[in-house]
């Protein structure tokens, strides 16, 4: 199959959705910029016209609210936030309005909206331009949240999000943009709420989210050289998340590590760990391990960044702990 990188896959999903459905349009910051969206929206304004690809002033609240209103009026908007951090300025339209709308009106009306936000970490950008805030949104009923980790999922989950009758927060990570992989040429959907088993193993389960799913595969390769057979699950969707696949794997291996690109306290990993502990307690051989960011804002120094962002070695060490091996000991 043809290979694309992650950013090309996002671009293709936009192009195909806009060509197939007149209701789909784009609004947000940086849409006419050659670099703002990392190439993921390049030239869409030229292809579809600037009426349908609206670059916006920095008015996150009203721009997101407009997207909600356009969705209620029969459109299929994609509202773009080049940093997930900026979405904090739009919490009212996302949570009070979009997420609650179906429930408020007993399902007579809903908000078919894609909110796309980018995690753009590293490069000494610091605390206000690096945040992985997915857990805050995962908390909210009525809002779906997806975080693809592969090019094929980047395309298929975006197309599924556009067709979903509910608000879907689609979070992509710039660190994944150069990942390559097979991507079908046609329009297809990856079901929201379905995880993918990336590697079958019997000793330990690693549940990875977004960038950390890619790190989990690297960790599994290292573990294989040490005689440890890891199963890697790419969660893909955070809300709803695939409890069946995760719990099946947990019961099989008895050891679970959750690798989450967000903070530790009340994070996505905490939710998954709690569910595994509650539902698969009698099959567990060790406490559930979490690999997360420390509870600290992103540093602005590259030296501190090296320590701040967990690497595959952190997942490998968590696996050792789960297997009762001394950290640092040779396999």
């Amino acid at each position: 199959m043809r290979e694309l990188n992650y950013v090309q896959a996002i671009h293709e999903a936009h192009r195909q959705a806009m060509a197939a459905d007149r209701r789909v349009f784009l609004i947000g910051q940086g849409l006419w910029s050659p670099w703002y969206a990392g190439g993921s929206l390049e030239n869409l304004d030229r292809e579809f016209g600037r009426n349908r690809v609206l670059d916006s002033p920095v008015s996150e609240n009203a721009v997101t609210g407009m997207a909600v209103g356009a969705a209620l009026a029969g459109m299929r908007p994609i509202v773009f936030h080049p940093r997930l951090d900026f979405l904090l300025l739009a919490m009212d339209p996302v949570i009070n309005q979009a997420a609650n709308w179906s429930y408020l009106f007993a399902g007579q009306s809903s908000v078919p909206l894609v909110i796309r936000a980018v995690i753009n970490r590293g490069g000494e950008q610091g605390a206000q331009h690096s945040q992985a805030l997915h857990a805050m949104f995962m908390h909210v009923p009525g809002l779906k949240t997806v975080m693809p980790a592969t090019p094929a999922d980047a395309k298929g989950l975006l197309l599924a999000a556009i067709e979903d009758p509910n608000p879907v927060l689609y979070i992509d990570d710039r660190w994944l943009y150069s990942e390559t992989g097979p991507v079908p040429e046609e329009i297809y959907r990856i079901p929201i709420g379905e995880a993918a088993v990336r590697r079958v193993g019997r000793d330990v389960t690693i549940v990875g989210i977004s960038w950390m799913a890619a790190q989990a595969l690297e960790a599994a390769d290292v573990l294989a050289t040490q005689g440890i057979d890891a199963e890697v699950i790419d969660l893909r969707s955070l809300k709803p998340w695939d409890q069946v696949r995760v719990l099946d794997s947990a019961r099989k291996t008895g050891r679970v590590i959750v690798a989450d690109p967000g903070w530790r306290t009340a994070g996505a990993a905490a939710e998954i760990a709690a569910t595994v502990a509650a539902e698969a307690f009698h099959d567990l051989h060790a406490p559930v391990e979490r690999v997360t960011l420390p509870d600290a804002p992103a540093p602005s120094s590259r030296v501190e960044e090296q320590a701040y962002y967990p690497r595959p070695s952190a997942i490998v060490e968590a696996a050792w702990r789960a297997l009762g091996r001394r950290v640092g000991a040779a396999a």
Partner: protein
Amino acid sequence: MHLMAPEQGIPGTVPIVAGTIPLAAGAALAYKLRGETCVAVAFFGDGALEEGSVHETLNLAALYKLPMIFVCENNLYSSHLHWSERRVADNLDQAGAFHSVPGARVDGNAIEEVYEATRQAVARARLGAGPSFIECRTFRWRGHVGASSDEDVGVHRRGELAEWLEYDPIRRAAEKLAMDLAADGAEIDREIERALAAARRGSLPEAGRIGEHVCAS
């Protein structure tokens, strides 16, 4: 609150102050993208002007030349706070000026003034000239919450209520329209009584439906 009547062009009413103003701009954008002649109208109170999103929306609506009308029902109070306790100038009709959105101040209890300002704003929107802002001066007879006047809970405002009760927009409209309010009003009262009786006869929803409609399917 939480009322909707899509067949009447009302997609929903919700309680967050100013929350629906950007939503109305989004509806206006949808009409514009589809080439329709519809005009979106956002209704809000004077308190909404103290939220940031309304100012963002005024700029966006002007920038994208949206077919939209901002209707501010200025009843002088936000909950228990008089406008002078929240602002230094009585100038809400100028809220759009900085964003090149023309504003009008009308007597909100005078149906002919509201009609004329609205007619002009609709014409402007349909010409593709962009949004308009209308401040309708009025007064809230009832309290901030519920059916009483708030006098019962110790909020006395400034004693204007008696004066405003005399300045009844419905009675004045009836006079202008040469309606016989006694006869027509009695029929309207009967209709309200019937609706009230039907609501009182209705049963409460069964428990055990938590989780329904959280997501649309």
